């Protein structure tokens, strides 16, 4: 047995741009172009077009059972890579070796024909995705049940609602049993309850030693599903490593680091008569500035400010909102060493420490405010100064446990759970965690 599932060696893909491919859509255009070249002595059959490398010298190896995310901006080469690995397009140079049966899902409902019934389409789509008829026969009832469309299985697909269509298409795909599964941004469809179901089903696949390659723009999804992430940039591998690190790098490079905001010019900084804001940072306990936060790890947010006039009692605040603009909480500074004490002029850094397993995954936006306590004079209140992304994991030690799907709620605390068991007919006894004499 091999210990490598996917091996990519110096893979490159060149596309022609400019004259030839886009404009040559009719024969007469082609003839005119050839003639023009002939007249201009540039050679009748010359192929001197502008070229563009969508992928350049990409190499990596994936072990069986690894779930690898591929991220990068639009045009970074993600889709080209998946298309080559799916054998839809050929590489210009280099090669890839795939050990085992491969299924790729680059679109939901590929090959579905609107005029045909759900039943017909299950067979058609299944066979396009690489299933044998006998396999589809065996799984047919399971697929239909999974899609929850038993009643409509003999109705033409064009009469399906969008949701039904997507569910059926996904149900077929979810029942593939390849050794290598290639997924391109396909989880972004369907209602969230069904997405959960699919994610769980795909996770099942992952746990059976199957290799998954997953492209997505949804960082929470990538962080949740993948342990390893490859970051592509302009067709080359910029980074390849543990999911959280790579995502952090990507997001740092992507949003111009939303994790830090500094005002170098004191005149434009937010300020009142007494206090001037200088900087806000999201950072790990080790002091590394990042906007990708592992849901399990505690982290801090610094507010750096300058007290221009001493002798006042100051009250810094933070305010946290999520993507839906829901205020999660708005904590005031409780540091006992400065609570109720007038502060001398000078530079301060006030840090609020946030425990792990507090926020739900997603992007969190931070407001900062500071007021003089007596008389309540607001010195500054800056909205959305910094933001950070909370990334959950499937390691099993976060609050999501072994659940792979979407989770509701704005908080995700790690709670203590207990279960008591008693034989039928007996009265269960309550678990007591305090004051018990056991």
């Amino acid at each position, binding site marked *: 047995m091999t210990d490598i599932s996917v091996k990519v060696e110096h893979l490159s893909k060149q596309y022609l741009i400019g004259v030839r*491919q886009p404009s040559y859509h009719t024969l007469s255009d082609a003839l005119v172009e050839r003639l023009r070249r002939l007249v201009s002595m540039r050679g009748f059959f010359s192929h001197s077009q502008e070229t563009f490398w969508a992928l350049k010298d990409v190499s990596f190896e994936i072990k069986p059972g690894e779930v690898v995310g591929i991220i990068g901006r639009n045009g970074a080469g993600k889709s080209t890579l998946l298309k080559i690995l799916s054998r839809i397009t*050929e590489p210009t140079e280099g090669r890839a070796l795939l050990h085992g*049966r491969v299924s*790729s899902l680059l679109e939901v409902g*590929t090959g579905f024909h609107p005029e045909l019934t759900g039943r*017909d389409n299950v067979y058609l789509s299944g066979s396009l995705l690489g299933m044998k008829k006998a396999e589809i026969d065996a799984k047919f009832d399971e697929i239909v049940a999974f899609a929850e469309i038993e009643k409509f299985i003999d109705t033409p697909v064009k009469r399906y609602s969008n949701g039904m269509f997507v569910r059926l298409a996904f149900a077929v795909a979810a029942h593939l049993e390849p050794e290598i599964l290639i997924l391109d941004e396909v989880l972004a469809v369907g209602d969230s309850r069904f997405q959960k179901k699919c994610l769980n089903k795909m996770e099942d696949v992952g746990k059976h030693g199957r290799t998954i390659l997953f492209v997505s723009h949804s960082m929470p999804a990538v962080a949740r599903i993948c342990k390893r992430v490859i970051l592509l940039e302009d067709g080359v591998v910029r980074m390849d490593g543990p999911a959280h690190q790579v995502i952090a790098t990507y997001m740092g490079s992507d949003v111009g680091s939303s994790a830090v905001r500094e005002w170098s010019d004191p005149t434009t900084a937010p300020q009142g008569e007494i206090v001037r804001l200088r900087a806000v940072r999201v950072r790990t306990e080790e002091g590394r500035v990042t906007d990708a936060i592992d849901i399990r790890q505690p982290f801090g947010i610094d507010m750096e400010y300058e007290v221009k006039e001493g002798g006042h009692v100051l009250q810094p605040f933070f305010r946290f909102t999520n993507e839906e603009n829901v205020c999660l909480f708005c904590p005031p500074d409780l540091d006992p060493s400065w609570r109720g004490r007038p502060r001398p002029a000078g530079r301060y850094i006030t840090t609020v420490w946030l425990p792990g397993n507090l926020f739900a995954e997603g992007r969190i936006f931070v407001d900062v405010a500071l007021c003089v306590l007596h008389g309540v004079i607001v010195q500054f209140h800056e909205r959305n100064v910094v933001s950070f992304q909370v990334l959950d994991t499937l390691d099993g030690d976060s609050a999501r446990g072994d659940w792979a799907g979407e989770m509701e709620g704005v908080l995700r605390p790690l709670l203590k759970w207990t279960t008591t068991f008693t034989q039928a007919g007996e009265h269960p006894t309550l678990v007591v965690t305090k004051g018990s004499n056991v």
Partner: protein
Amino acid sequence: MAPANAVLSPTVIESRRNSFYLNVQELWDFRELLYFLAWRDMKARYAQTVLGVAWAIIQPLAALVIFTIVFSLWAKLPSDGLPYPLFAYAALLPWTLLARSLERSGQSVVAESNLVKKVYFPRVILPIASTLAGVIDFVIAFALFLLLMAWYGIAPTWKVIAIPMLVLFTLGTSLAVSLWLSALNVHYRDVAGAIPLLTQLWMYASPVVYPLALVPEQWRTVYSLNPMAGIIEGFRWALLGGAAPDTRTAMLSASATGILLIFGLIFFNRMSRTFSDVV
């Protein structure tokens, strides 16, 4: 859990430089997909039509009526001493099979551009499936022909057993041309417009409405390079009796198809490497 086929050699993905290479094993592995695509073509074609499969009868029947009026009653073309409707219908059987197949499979790759861009399979399956989808229409039209023979009181002879061979020959010819057209159509959409024109011209260059005997002897060799000449004469011979096609015509027609098919496969294979980038 070891992957079931870990012992198999890995799939190697690299730039194919050899255009002559046709992976027959792979085609065989994808035979079920071929079947499903052909089946879908047949099924989807008549979905939401009132007359459904009846169209498979109406089309050749309408052509038959028109041909009988125009070429027999009006132009008084000879028909080897056979009733003209039978004479023409025997030719329309393979001709319609060819014409309908060309019409569909010439566009097959472009029509399935969505599949080509999203799923891997040997691309040659597309023109093959579209070609095969015409067989069901042929079977229906053939049944009608048998009724027509009964009407004229002509009994089929043992020569009918040649029909399956001739059908294969027709499909081969159709595929040979479709391979060229469907691949060219990816780059040059002009092909789609040229197909009806091509089939029109081809029909008059084939002995559909007139007997082969009408072609001057000195042109026969050139004429027989058209595979449909041999096929149509073969159909008339197998169904209605009369002179057996001469060996020269048969050999020329067969070699023309063979050569066209082989080079068609090479050409298609070569072009298919860039289908997903261009289509």
